[in-house]
Each structure stands twice: as structure tokens, then as C-alpha cells.
């Protein structure tokens, strides 16, 4: 089952909107609550990254029996050095955005900590693609 959400760059008043839609959908599917919580953190951070850094993006959420896959694709400045972007505390966000409590350099590390897989590819000047996978089975085994 696939659903797609549009994410508008720079529109902070709508940041988190797609994430709450995804949360609602996953709850309706009656998935394990711990799994939903992990997906929500990863989804929110991916969504906010597009709002903060890109011009426009989409989140494609695909739920199968085994896993939830979220693919963020944006048009934006891209990431020059992905290893550096993954470092906790590293951020290119503006002062204004930081004052709101965003841009603390914790977004990608949060995704990494809560998702089972995180794959990033980026073309500077064009955009970024972030793939997040959370396995459904693994959570059931844990509980």
C-alpha cells in the first residue's frame, strides 16, 4: 500500500502535517505501537529536513507485510558531504531556524537511531533522496 505526501519547503506552519497523517494511517492498520513510534520520529525528521532545507519534496510511504518504507525525494541544495551531515550537532540551518528549536543537527542521527535502515543519496545543486526502512517483524519479536 502506497501513499504520497507533498512537503513544501519553508512552510513551517505545515511541518509535521504529513507525519501526523502517517501516524493516523499506521494506527488504523493496527501496527505495533512501538513500531509506530519509531516510524513517527523518523518520518517527522525527514519531513522537517525538507521544510528547513529544500524547495519542495515528497514522501512516499509504502507499507508491506514485512516493512514500512519511506522515500523522501526533494528538489533543493543537496548535501555536499553526507558523512558530515550525519554527525550529531552538524547543521547548516540559519540562526532564525535554530531559534525556533530546529536545526540542532539531531535530525539525521534521530532517523538513524529509530529506523532500521537509512540510505541517503544527494546531488548538490539538485536535491536529496532519503530512504528509511522500519521492519515490522523485528518489533513483534522484541515485544
Amino acid at each position, binding site marked *: 500500500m502506497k501513499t504520497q505526501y507533498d512537503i513544501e519547503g519553508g512552510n513551517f506552519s505545515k511541518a*509535521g502535517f504529513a*507525519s*501526523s497523517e502517517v501516524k493516523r494511517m499506521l494506527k488504523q492498520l493496527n501496527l505495533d505501537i512501538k513500531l509506530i513510534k519509531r516510524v513517527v520520529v523518523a518520518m517527522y525528521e525527514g519531513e522537517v529536513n525538507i521544510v528547513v532545507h529544500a524547495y519542495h519534496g515528497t514522501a512516499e510511504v509504502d507499507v508491506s507485510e514485512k516493512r514500512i518504507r519511506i522515500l523522501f525525494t526533494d528538489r533543493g541544495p543537496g548535501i555536499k558531504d553526507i558523512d558530515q551531515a550525519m554527525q550529531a550537532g552538524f547543521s547548516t540551518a540559519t540562526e532564525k531556524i535554530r531559534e*525556533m*528549536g530546529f536545526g540542532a543537527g*539531531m535530525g539525521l542521527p*534521530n532517523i538513524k537511531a529509530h529506523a532500521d535502515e537509512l540510505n541517503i543519496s544527494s546531488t548538490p545543486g539538485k536535491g536529496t533522496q532519503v530512504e528509511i526502512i522500519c521492519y515490522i517483524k523485528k518489533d513483534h519479536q522484541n515485544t
Partner: protein
Amino acid sequence: MTVKDVVKALNLTVYSGSDGLDKPVNGGYTSDLLSDVMGNASEGMAWITLQTHKNVMAIASLKDLSAVILVNNLQPLEDTQQYSNQEQIPIVGTTLSAFEISGRLHNLLNSS
């Protein structure tokens, strides 16, 4: 202990989301960094912060937090209050600093 009990015990002001005052409070988290709260707070906690904008409520809702406590007499923006009413997650406030109110909430929850 519910949000209402915390409001009474710590002499807090209720700004919005009063439909959620019966939510149980099982802990607290003090931070002004949104990703910190996203990554580390958990369901039922009261979030102590100085951030007053709408994104606070997006996080409170996504994380199923019990309440948002604004420090230093800060007041929520209008659209933040609307979001709080809609999600039935109260925004309450104090004149105290984050340090002071965190200490008092901690004591209160540990003694109940």
C-alpha cells in the same frame, strides 16, 4: 497524577487545551530543541520549554505528550493555542524558569 493536579499543585496558568486536563502525567522533559524532544521524550510526559510556536504542538501530538509547560511567563501564539485545543493537549504556563519548574515537577511526581 493528571495535568489538572499538576496545574493546581504548581500554581500554573492554563492557556489552552483544557479538554485534556485529565490526561495523566507520568514524567517530564525539559528542552528547547525540537529534535531532542522528538528523539528522547516519551508518551505521557509534560514538556517544559520556552518555545511558543505551533510546531511545539505538532511534536506534542506526534509524541502523545500530556502537556506543554511554558516557562518565564511566556505565552503561546494564537495558532499554537488553536492546535492545542484541537489536539486536546493543554498548554500551561509558569513565571518560573525552566530549572525551577523542572525541579518542582520532579519533586511533585516523585512524591505522589
